[in-house]
């Protein structure tokens, strides 16, 4: 059941994995590095965000902090999924969480809006998630590996690596669900360009901090002005 739902999305995921594989090699990762990244990191957006930073020789903590920030949406998902998971032993919770991407999260919470219930219901939830994540993992990792090998045939001057930036742009649009999130994106983009001359790719972190801080401030002022109006 979970596997069937994941199948419906698999062609898109496969095409994306293929692009991911090509983008990693085009940016200068070795075949081994690209394969390692494709099979272990299992988070397209943080991989794509890390690639230009690795290529530019940014220090490790800057690459990791950027990957962490891109991945922070999963922290929100994990808070939501917690009640579905806590009956499992720790290693199963960690494994399930690790394999639950945006797609599996959305499909799973749509199929099971409420957690818990009888042992049979818990079992059905687990089986759905396992099937869904399994298909996802195979489609993603399989096509990433294929992409890594195909990339060897395409000269870098074609600029296929730019597909990675287009993918990030699409994800950005899908996250832009409120006006303040647009503000966050605009501020971060402008700050990253303005502070580009900073060493160690620190412009990225500075931009994130500035955007989040400004949005939190705007939230507070907006809330207090709404209170004032009421």
């Amino acid at each position, binding site marked *: 059941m979970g596997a069937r739902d994941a199948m419906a*999305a698999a062609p*898109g995921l496969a095409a994306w994995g293929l692009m991911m594989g090509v983008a990693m090699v085009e940016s200068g990762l*070795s*075949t081994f590095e690209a394969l390692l990244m494709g099979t*272990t*990191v299992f*988070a397209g*957006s*943080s991989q794509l*965000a*890390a690639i*230009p*930073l690795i290529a530019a020789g940014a220090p490790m903590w800057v690459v*990791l902090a950027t990957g*962490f*920030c*891109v*991945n*922070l949406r*999963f*922290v*929100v998902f*994990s808070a939501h*999924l917690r009640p579905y998971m806590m009956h499992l032993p*720790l290693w199963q*919770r*960690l494994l399930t*969480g690790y394999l*639950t991407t945006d797609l599996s999260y959305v499909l799973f919470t749509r199929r099971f809006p409420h957690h818990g219930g009888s042992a049979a219901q818990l079992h059905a939830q687990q089986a759905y998630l396992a099937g869904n994540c399994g298909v996802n993992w195979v489609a993603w990792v399989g096509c990433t590996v294929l992409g890594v090998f195909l990339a060897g045939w395409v000269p870098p001057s*074609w600029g296929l690596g*730019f597909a990675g*930036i*287009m993918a*990030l*742009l*699409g*994800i950005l*649009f*899908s*996250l*832009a669900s*409120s006006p*303040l999130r647009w503000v*966050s*994106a605009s501020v*971060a983009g*402008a700050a*990253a*360009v303005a502070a*580009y*001359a900073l060493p160690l790719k620190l*412009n*990225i972190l500075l*931009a*994130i901090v500035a*955007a*989040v801080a400004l*949005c*939190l401030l705007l*939230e507070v002022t907006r809330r207090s002005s709404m209170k004032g109006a009421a």
Partner: protein
Amino acid sequence: MIKAQTDLWTVAVIIALALITVLTRTLFFISSKPWHLPPWAQRGLQYAPIAALSAVIVPEVLLTHGQLIASWQDARLFAAAAGALWFFWHKGQGQAVLGTIVVGMAVYLPLHLVGGW
């Protein structure tokens, strides 16, 4: 093409990134005691991911060797604009992100390869 060399530093970065995937996806299931983030951090989670993406994307589209591009004749601008149009036209449908990539590259490749932009 030149075969890139594997270096230990990059391998270490990749392994650490994989650990970050595990950490962020399971943060709330690690401890069996219930716990909460402070409210400011919870609200900050709303804005950090999109800020991080934008901070990576915008310089990659608007800068060449650290300088703002001086001419509008740049394939990246047209690709990003075409991708944005596609996304907001197909918003809410599955695969809108995939369409953004395909349409963007369909604009980028001819301009870049044939037009030399």
